[in-house]
């Protein structure tokens, strides 16, 4: 089994250290409204380079662009669709971050060449290590949207319309070189009855994943009760938040996994640091019956809920725990994720 440590989704774009507040300075500058789009893009690229370098320095194998360009986990994608406008402000699940609920007032369609793939292509080009991309899934997006007008009679109808668009985007992400694509579905834990519909959606999406690995992440809760069904999904791997209960951990321990499994064991809700030894021991116990070719250690969610220095520290702990888990000492060459099984 190949062990990796990776980052999932967001990463703090602002830090307390000098030079880590460029985006904040731009936002506060008197000329911000006149700032050329190109200049903002340059600053975002600088920040993304820093974020990638920081994760690489921490020792992660698969990196994230930190979603530095994203206003929030929902609007960045939905805002690029026709007939979607920003609506009510809502807290994003169990995070300090708020997002605008997308108001869908007509048939959705692409307005740009991609939802995220153009950005990811640039990120892949500048990243020293493989890039993992996290997208909100069609179930969650459809449930968080506000439906207006006759185009979609129900959230299910919107979900059906989102699936082909997201499948196209997954194909673009694969072409852009995304090493892994994570479909994050926090809503699944609120609405487990939607499982069959999600399964159907993932079949369509997975068919377009090319050489990328497709993982699903039922985040913001304990997915233990759904574990058997998660194993049957048409994906390459599952990501589990193991900080919010014992159900998922017990399920992995007893049932193992046929799919690649990413263990969310660094808690993004607290600045308290886990120790590498503690995480490695926990992971070893969890993975006892796992026969998948790939297992990973990841944060329990997006790292943006933490201050920047703590996000970095959590990444370092994950990387050190991976080394302990894989029996690789400091300085010894590791195989890395490239070429690892799905």
């Amino acid at each position, binding site marked *: 089994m190949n062990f990796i440590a990776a980052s999932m989704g967001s990463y703090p774009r602002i830090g307390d250290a000098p030079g880590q507040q460029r985006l904040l300075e731009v936002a506060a500058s008197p000329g911000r409204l006149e700032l050329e789009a190109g200049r903002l893009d340059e600053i975002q690229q600088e920040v993304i380079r820093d974020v990638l370098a920081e994760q690489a320095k921490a020792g992660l194998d698969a990196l994230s662009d930190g979603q530095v360009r994203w206003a929030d986990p929902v609007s960045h994608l939905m805002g690029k669709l026709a007939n979607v406008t920003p609506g009510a402000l809502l807290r994003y699940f169990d*995070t300090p971050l708020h997002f605008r609920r997308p108001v869908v007032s007509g048939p959705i369609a692409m307005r740009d060449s991609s939802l995220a793939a153009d950005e990811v292509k640039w990120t892949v080009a500048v990243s020293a290590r493989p890039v993992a991309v996290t997208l909100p899934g069609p179930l969650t997006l459809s449930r968080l949207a506000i439906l207006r007008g006759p185009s979609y009679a129900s959230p299910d109808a919107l979900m059906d319309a989102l699936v082909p668009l997201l499948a196209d985007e997954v194909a673009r992400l694969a072409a852009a070189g995304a090493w892994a694509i994570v479909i994050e579905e926090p809503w699944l834990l609120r609405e487990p009855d939607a499982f069959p519909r999600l399964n159907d959606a993932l079949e369509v999406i997975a068919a377009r994943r090319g050489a990328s690995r497709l993982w699903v992440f039922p985040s913001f809760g304990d997915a233990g009760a759904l574990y058997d069904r998660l194993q049957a999904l048409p994906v390459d791997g599952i990501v589990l938040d193991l900080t919010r209960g014992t159900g998922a951990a017990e399920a992995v321990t007893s049932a193992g996994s046929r799919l690649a499994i990413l263990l969310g064991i660094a808690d993004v809700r607290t600045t*308290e640091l886990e120790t590498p030894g503690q995480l490695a021991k926990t992971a070893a116990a969890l993975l006892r019956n796992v026969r998948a070719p790939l297992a990973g250690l990841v944060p329990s969610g997006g790292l943006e809920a933490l201050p920047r220095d703590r996000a970095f520290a959590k990444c370092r702990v994950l990387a050190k725990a991976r080394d302990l888990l894989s029996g690789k000492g400091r300085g010894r060459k590791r195989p890395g994720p490239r070429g690892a099984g799905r």
Partner: protein
Amino acid sequence: MSRPKLQQLGVDVPILPATTVGSAPETPELAATRTAAARGELDAGQLAAKRQEAVAGWIATQESLGLDILTDGEPGRGDGVGWFTAHLKGFKPGGLVRTRGNRFVLRPVLAGEVRWTAPVTVALWSHAQGLTQKPVKATLPGPYSLLAASCNERYPTRQVACRALAREIRREADALVKAGCRILQLDEPALGSRADELELASDAIRIVTRDLAAYVVVHVCYADLGTLWPALLDLPADNLDLEMVNGDFAVPRSPAKAACPKDVSIGVIDVLSAKADTPETMLRRVKKALAVLKPEQVWIDPDCGLRSRTPDEAVTQLTAMVAAAREARRGRGG
């Protein structure tokens, strides 16, 4: 319905009272004071004097607008909860965390046993109440949202941490009541971020409010109220203060008039927008609430605090809100 409780407490408010959620708009003077304080350019006495000036100005504004229940305007409170945790033992300052767009707050760290040592809000509340005959509502962070806004490194579980926070907030609440406060609001914007923890939140709020000689408001905003209703009705509060315009009146659509046992403060101003709605628009929002709630149950206020609005925007919006409240009272003995 808690109007008899208000009467028992000696608080006289008209039917369909108009109020605000808590914070006043940020004036240039307050912003300058905040900057100067952060740079250490003001000593404690100077800072207190500046804040008292701000309170006096806001009380005068609210009285001139005709609001019925006032607040001290919360000068000195930035975004987040750091203004409160800075006064509690056990907390240490944390790093910057994004809350939306380009807004960041310092997320405090609960690193040791939390301990209230002295009143935090009483002086300004007392100053405010001393300037008016109208009741002044005090506002405090709710225990659940204080937990959500912090990083817990000290307590073994969220439940234990939340209860510990609640016990210390209770001490601040007791100090406010001792000073004469009769309307206390707990701000719980994180309520609903985890539906499975509503009971935990409710238990913690109960620790703060049990047998407290005050009318208790719980303010909830930017939460999916539709999924929280009707469970919210079990919260140990007299009044649920709900953001309504932003949430498109997700509640109370369903409860029958007899089914809602609590008073409800209805947000009729979208504080995220600089646009001023007309009194007629706001009256329509009040009438929506009155379709499912009795007039004796309804308070009228903005969706949330006014800190992100300019003074001019806030005055324009509140003027329209008070006009709507007066129109709604017409013929109802108000």
